[in-house]
């Protein structure tokens, strides 16, 4: 049992020390969610446990459906949402893969729901530690996909997710990612705003249609191929709208609750820096620490933290590529036969860039391998030094081999060495 202590601020705000998973549960409760359907999976389990506890003890007026699988979890969440109830589910890794079919179905239905994804490696072998391959695997499905850096942001993003997904310009479901164990099971102080203030800020649920005896709505029967095509086009337009909505919600949340993150990305000394790291999730904190040390040493370096993978922050990345001398991508995931996900996405913005920066794509931390601030420091410093010494290059697949294996395996794969721009 984790200790929780309370401290009441002047404006009714409560500061609690919470794990990331408890922060999720508190946000779900604060959003007055009506139906929760979830299935336990490490490291998500304490979310469903905490919500069950809150519901059973009357702290939260909701119905909990203790489903028999994640496939059913999202189906039940969608069912409740289609009836008109604000609903929530949470999962991780294999659970997310099992529900993948329903992930697509929910987005296609244009029914807003919110889901926490506690990021975790995919087996085999079994591994319960942090990895981003599970969450990025949903990238094509039509969900808005966000990922937090710390427990406070977990709370804030989860609350904002209801606002964003239920916005009539969007009407898409939304994932809030939080890193397994690093956030999910680690305590940190979380400000929980006053419920009245939350109620004022978060409007009653809005959705494009409900399936009720009165509405007569039929969702999902056959459609002409041309209509199907246009429905897909409509999801993409909603994604574009979502960029505006995310930014507005971030601003407004900042005004009302005092915390603003920057919208699709967080720019940590990234404006005007010659070198930048692009990274997502909890280890961004370590990258920032390394960057601060490097800045003390006189390096011009910053961090662009990707908060939203979908919609992808095209504008922000284009600007970063246009203004940086070198960009270091740190991916905790790999598309086998391709490259890291952040790098792959960002390279789609290169044609819009007015500049061709040096690029290195680092694959690190898969399966929860720890990468500390000192390693980020080394990775960044060596990248900058190499560029300064030898000129710009493209090095998209740099495997940051775990310490115990270092020297035994190549960091640059055959076919993906380091390509100097001068050679072209």
């Amino acid at each position, binding site marked *: 049992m984790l200790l929780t202590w309370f401290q009441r601020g002047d404006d009714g705000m409560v500061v609690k020390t919470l794990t990331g998973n408890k922060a999720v549960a508190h946000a779900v409760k604060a959003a007055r969610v009506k139906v929760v359907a979830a299935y336990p999976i490490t490291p998500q389990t304490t979310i469903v446990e905490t919500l069950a506890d809150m519901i059973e003890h009357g702290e939260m007026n909701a119905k909990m459906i203790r489903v028999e*699988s994640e*496939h059913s979890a999202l189906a039940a969440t969608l*069912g409740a949402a289609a009836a008109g109830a604000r609903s929530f589910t949470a999962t991780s890794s294999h659970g997310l893969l099992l529900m993948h079919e329903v992930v697509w179905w929910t987005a296609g239905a244009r029914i807003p729901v919110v889901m926490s994804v506690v990021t975790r490696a995919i087996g085999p072998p079994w591994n319960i530690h942090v990895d981003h391959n599970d969450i990025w695997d949903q990238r094509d499905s039509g969900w808005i996909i966000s990922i937090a850096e710390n427990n406070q942001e977990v709370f804030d993003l989860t609350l904002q997710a209801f606002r964003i997904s239920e916005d009539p310009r969007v009407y898409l479901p939304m994932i809030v990612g939080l890193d397994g164990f690093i956030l999910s099971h680690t305590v940190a102080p979380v400000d929980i705003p006053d419920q009245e203030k939350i109620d004022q800020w978060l409007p009653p649920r809005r959705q494009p249609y409900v399936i009720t005896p009165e509405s007569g709505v039929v969702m999902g029967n056959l459609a002409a191929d041309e209509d199907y095509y246009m429905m897909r086009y409509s999801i993409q337009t909603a994604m574009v709208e979502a960029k505006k909505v995310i930014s507005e919600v971030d601003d407004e949340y900042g005004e009302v609750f005092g915390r603003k993150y920057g919208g699709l990305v967080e720019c940590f000394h990234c404006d005007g820096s010659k070198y930048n790291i692009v990274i997502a999730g909890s280890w961004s904190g370590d990258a920032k620490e390394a960057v601060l040390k490097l800045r003390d040493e006189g390096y011009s370096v910053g961090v662009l933290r990707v908060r939203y993978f979908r919609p992808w922050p095209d504008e922000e990345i284009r600007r970063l590529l246009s203004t940086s001398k070198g960009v270091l991508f740190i991916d905790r995931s790999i598309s086998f036969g391709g490259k890291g996900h952040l790098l792959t996405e960002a390279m789609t913005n290169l044609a819009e860039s007015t500049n061709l920066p040096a690029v290195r794509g680092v694959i690190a931390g898969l399966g929860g391998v720890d990468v500390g601030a000192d390693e980020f420091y080394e990775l960044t410093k060596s990248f900058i030094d190499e560029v300064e010494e030898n000129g710009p290059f493209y090095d998209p697949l740099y495997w940051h081999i775990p310490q115990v294996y270092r020297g035994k395996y190549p960091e640059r794969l055959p076919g993906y060495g380091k390509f100097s721009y001068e050679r072209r």
Partner: protein
Amino acid sequence: MPVKLRDFPRTHFNMPGNAACPGCPETMGLRYVKMALGDKAVLVIPAGCSSVIQGISPKSGINFPILNIVFAAAASAAAGMKAGFEMLGRDDVQVVVWAGDGGTADIGLQAMSGAAERGDDIIYICVDNEAYMNTGIQRSGATPYGAWTTTTWTGKKEHKKNVPFIMIAHDVPYVATASVGYPQDFIEKLRKAATVKGFKYIHLHAPCPVGWRFDPGLTPEIAQLAVKTGMWPLFEYHNGKLKISSFSRLYRVKEKRVPLKEYLKLQGRFRHLKDSDVKILEEYIDRLWAWLDLLEKAPNPSGTARDLLGK
């Protein structure tokens, strides 16, 4: 409560001009669901013939609001809908799953078992045409022994999975079998199920002219023959008590049953059966009735074990 045909209003119970094949038992069944439950029901339909029968957007050929859902998730989506309605103060809405035998006996069994075990307050109807008809007549767990399908070219070697018995074993408050050959019986059972709180399961036998290879005009007759030969016994299991329904009562006695061959000979899917195969099916029927007999006699002083738990 007998069903009087004249009392029904002159409205559409199903939408004509839908995509069902001529003589389709599913559209027959859907009309009876509408006759029984009226305008207070919403359907949840997983992949199957009924996904297609609705026809093409923006119209739908089934006269209900519908949440179409992926194949394996009908019961869970329905459980979610019911929970949503309850939380919004709408206890009046009947959430009804309309799933085929594939979506029930096979790919959807896990989700249904979960919903039954949780006691979700929904009506689950399995419309059983005894194969995966929508994908082109492949065998399912509910295909009977001997039947030709496009994945059992020489006839299925295994017997039909008995889903109603599986649901009885779940100790749910209401389980019934029905047939499109006996609409009044089906309607009565639906109306009864609608008054019961908890998970209700109705298994509707639905002879398919395309997949079973018979004249589309014969759908009701073949459905009735399944009952009269004892192959498809109609029964009701309510609060722990099993009762053979009136249309099947006569066929409890083996000698009163119509010879099985009368049922088999009308269907192309059984054309290749040898006498030894027919004997295997007859033994299946005897065993089925022996089980029913046992269940009927099983002492059950105070409803289901669920009742004893005070649920």
